[in-house]
């Protein structure tokens, strides 16, 4: 842009550094950093702290890159949803082409750097995660099927597997269980949100389960996934990444989660509207805590291991 163009009235607001950071979805990145770190630290073999730090950073950059690609592709629907209208592309701060360039460049950068910092398995998993989130979920499934959340959840479930692969160079039962924990948690988490944010998705024409099959079916699905999630989450406690601390946390949280899902299932729209979706909102809040505490407990077991306290001895 030349100085002459500054004087025109048609100029776009120029993006600040923070707008490019926002393009990488920092909140999603923080979850990715946390779960990938847990995957890395829970692995039976250690890595040098510098390699661990750099690997987690490159995983986060890869996640951010897929976020930028998502914002590039979804700018049209982001603009009509209240929750996403202020994102850099729909807000006009970053050009769609720029978002695409940032996304593609950072994807390549993150994968190559992760391969150099750790190993090809971790880099391959990261490349697949970016492809899965940007192409399979964002471009293909999100606007096509009400099961979008279920399949898209897989993309968010890969980071602990990548962290595990950084340390071990492979895939293990425990890393698959951590993947499944997030994968099975995502549908009840998002569908609870969709129950009280329905208007947004409907306006954007995204085939959310609440829009295509109605709220009754969504409530049934929340309960079904929660009931499938509970044994999986508790069962993880008996593997090498689990232990008494994890098991205690998992039993309590899953009991609360199942009770919450049952309450959602027993309600109908009239009751929910009467109390402004109080139960759905508290279930959504609990779901955030649920994931954080499960992974926190895995981390605690790993942290206690050097003192002979973590795991099952």
């Amino acid at each position, binding site marked *: 842009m030349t100085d002459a163009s500054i004087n025109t009235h048609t100029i776009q607001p*120029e993006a600040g*550094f923070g707008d490019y950071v926002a393009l990488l979805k920092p909140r999603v990145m923080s979850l990715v950093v946390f779960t990938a770190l847990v995957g890395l630290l829970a692995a039976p073999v250690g890595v040098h702290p510098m390699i661990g730090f*750099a690997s987690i950073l490159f995983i986060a950059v890869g996640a951010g890159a897929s976020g930028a690609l998502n914002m590039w592709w979804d700018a049209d629907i982001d603009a009509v949803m209240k929750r996403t209208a202020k994102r850099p592309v729909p807000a006009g701060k970053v050009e769609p082409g720029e978002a695409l360039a940032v996304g593609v460049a950072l994807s390549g950068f993150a994968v190559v750097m992760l391969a150099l910092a750790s190993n090809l398995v971790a880099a391959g998993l990261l490349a697949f995660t970016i492809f899965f989130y940007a192409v399979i979920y964002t471009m293909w499934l999100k606007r096509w099927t009400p099961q979008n959340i279920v399949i898209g959840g897989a993309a968010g479930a890969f980071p602990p597997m990548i962290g595990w692969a950084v340390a071990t160079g492979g895939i293990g039962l425990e890393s698959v269980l951590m993947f499944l924990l997030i994968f099975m948690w995502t549908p009840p988490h998002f569908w609870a949100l969709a129950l009280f944010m329905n208007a947004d998705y409907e306006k954007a024409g995204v085939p959310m389960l609440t829009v295509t099959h109605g709220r009754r079916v969504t409530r049934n699905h929340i309960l079904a996934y929660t009931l499938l999630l509970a044994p999986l989450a508790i069962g993880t406690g008996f593997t090498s990444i689990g232990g008494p601390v994890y098991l205690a946390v998992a039993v309590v949280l899953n009991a609360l989660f199942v009770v919450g899902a049952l309450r959602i299932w027993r309600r109908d729209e009239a009751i929910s509207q009467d109390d402004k979706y109080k139960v759905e909102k508290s279930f959504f809040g609990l779901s955030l805590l649920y994931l954080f505490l499960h992974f926190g407990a895995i981390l605690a077991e790993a942290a206690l291991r050097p003192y002979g306290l973590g795991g099952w001895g």
Partner: protein
Amino acid sequence: MSLRAEHELHRRRAGRNIGLALVLLGFIAIVFGLTVVKVTSGDPMQAFDHVSRPEMVPGAAPAKGD
């Protein structure tokens, strides 16, 4: 308009430039750190100088002086 006039846009550009500079400096530091770690704690390394190395042959007698 004077070129020296401070516009909000200039502040944004300065912020972007400083941000990018810090990111690049951070990247240099990370690559340097990774290099040091890989070189000092990596697998035992041996230069390849196009001559046969008897110690690499399974079952071969150790080289003189070993």
